[in-house]
């Protein structure tokens, strides 16, 4: 089975902190994604990466950056956390011919 692992299930951070969310997949997938999920809004794509060191902006990249130094790992960075970034963050991975496999999610609260 594909396994996508997010480093934390729950995080509480203070406004202005730099926050790192880590995601690791074990199936050698080229493509990795970061989404945020908010009630009534569904999943919104923040960034995705189709190869090591490659990244593309999604629909809501403002306030976020990403890093992909190794194929299996994709990190989401909140440069200066704000309360409106309180959300559920979901990492996913896939290869071109399959659909996305998700991690268990990180519920981030910014206070």
């Amino acid at each position, binding site marked *: 089975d594909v396994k996508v692992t997010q480093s934390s299930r729950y995080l509480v951070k203070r406004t202005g902190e730099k926050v790192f969310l880590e995601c690791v997949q074990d199936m050698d997938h080229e493509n990795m994604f970061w989404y945020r999920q908010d009630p009534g809004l569904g999943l919104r794509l923040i960034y995705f990466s189709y190869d090591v060191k490659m990244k593309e902006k999604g629909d809501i990249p403002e306030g976020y950056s990403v890093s992909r130094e190794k194929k299996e790992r994709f990190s989401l960075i909140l440069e200066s956390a704000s309360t409106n970034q309180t959300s559920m963050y979901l990492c996913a991975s896939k290869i*071109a011919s399959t659909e996305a496999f998700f991690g*268990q999610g990180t519920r981030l609260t910014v206070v």
Partner: protein
Amino acid sequence: QKEVEQDPGPLSVPEGAIVSLNCTYSNSAFQYFMWYRQYSRKGPELLMYTYSSGNKEDGRFTAQVDKSSKYISLFIRDSQPSDSATYLCAMREPDSNYQLIWGAGTKLIIKP
């Protein structure tokens, strides 16, 4: 108007009932349609995947696509309390391996 519309619910039905979950969309270029199931405090998992129009059946689940009406459905027969979850539809164009367009999700509650 959103590209994909999905009623957020909650939809509450008794155990054993047939459940119908639906999404409408506006982009006629969508060709791949997916249903994901998300249990509380978990990530979504792929439930059904269909290409273009028609029906696909997997056990108690049937996915139906009507491209002429831009309407997709997920039917659950003999619903069980373990089916209680949020169901998200997603879709994409043929050349877009990266960009899935998501519905907001419908919360389903199956009462014992």
